[in-house]
């Protein structure tokens, strides 16, 4: 039996399909990190740590001509976003309703996607994750609100990476405010700013809820490593007469192994 305990939920096979599909659809647009960094896995729920390939000497040596070291690993974090689905809605879904109320699921999907983005781009100190923005060795570039200057800022960030010998293509994770401004803006002559920025990058520009400002990074590979244990899954917690209580869950670790391969464009 899987630890997700799905078979204990009072949900039909068709209901589970709807829930999984809804979660997948709602989460995918917001998962900016997965569109830009290297993804390893999914492994499984039992995958607990990422091998760092390093060892540290122990203060308490056994003596007798024995030298002891201990391997260093990065433990995976587990994210869980609880939500509830009304049993009446699930019954209607089984009748063929196409407007099933999954509002709580939609909110949970967004919350957990944002949490993943935050961990990858801005770090999570207590979990041992250093984010891409904070790890960057380049001076941050203020992005500001003047969209007409965005191509200049992005080009400057690309130049910084090229100067450090970091090849492209480059991707840009844009926080929601900056992303909205970019979408709304046409440059002189009507050329969309979005297309101009994509030409500078040579890679994707993604909507990244949870990101402050924007983060430009190389996508040549090997620089930013997402280690996925259990990929996003929906599990069962409990139910009563009115609702089924479920959760979205994943486990992962993240490492920025080439800090000079990214530039943070601050808000």
């Amino acid at each position, binding site marked *: 039996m*899987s630890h*997700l305990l799905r*078979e204990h939920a009072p949900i039909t096979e068709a209901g*589970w399909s709807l829930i999984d599909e809804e*979660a997948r659809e709602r989460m995918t647009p917001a998962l900016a990190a*997965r569109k830009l960094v290297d993804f390893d896995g999914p492994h499984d729920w039992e995958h607990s740590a990422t091998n760092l390939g390093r060892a540290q000497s122990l203060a308490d040596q056994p003596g007798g001509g024995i030298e002891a070291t201990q391997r260093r690993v990065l433990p995976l974090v587990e994210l869980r976003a609880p939500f509830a689905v009304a049993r009446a809605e699930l019954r209607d879904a089984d009748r063929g309703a196409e407007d099933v109320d999954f509002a709580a699921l939609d909110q949970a999907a967004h919350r957990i996607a944002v949490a993943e983005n935050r961990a990858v781009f801005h770090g999570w100190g207590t979990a041992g994750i250093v984010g891409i923005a904070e790890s960057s060795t380049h001076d941050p570039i203020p992005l500001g609100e003047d969209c007409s200057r965005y191509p200049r800022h992005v080009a400057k960030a690309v130049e910084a990476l090229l100067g450090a010998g970091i090849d492209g293509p480059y991707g840009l994770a844009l926080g929601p405010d900056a992303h909205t401004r970019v979408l709304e803006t046409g440059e002189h002559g009507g050329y969309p700013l979005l297309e101009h920025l994509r030409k500078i990058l040579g890679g994707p520009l993604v909507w990244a809820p949870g990101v402050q400002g924007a983060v430009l990074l190389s996508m040549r590979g090997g620089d930013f490593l997402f280690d996925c244990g259990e*990929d996003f899954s929906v599990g069962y917690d409990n139910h009563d007469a009115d609702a089924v209580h479920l959760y979205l869950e994943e486990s992962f670790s993240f490492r920025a192994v080439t800090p000079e391969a990214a530039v943070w464009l601050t808000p």
Partner: protein
Amino acid sequence: MGFDQYHEPAAELPEETRTFARLCASLTEEAEAIGWYEQRMALERDRDARAIMRDAQGEEFKHFCMDLEFLMRRTPLWREIAQGILFQEGDIVEHGEEAEEEALEGAASRGAPLASGVSLGIGSLRGADS
């Protein structure tokens, strides 16, 4: 050049099913290439030419295995059956029958979907529309 790896209208298929179908087609092509090199090496009399073909066939082994691993990661039932057959000593057919029976019964008793795992199967989104 067609898109005949799809048995159903491609536009109606979910993206993950299209990816699955592409990898199935790739798996088939790698297996065919392995067979072709085997035939060529059986007839080739030039030692150097045979060595090159053997090296090339090794590449196809690798590609085949990578395709297979990808497909099985996406299909837990396939993986479970494969675990009962691959790298086992003894009667292959017997192992096959037993592995299939155990995997299907196990999946049914768990109420698990047979075609895929319980994960949402999102994985990497590199290359997805931004």
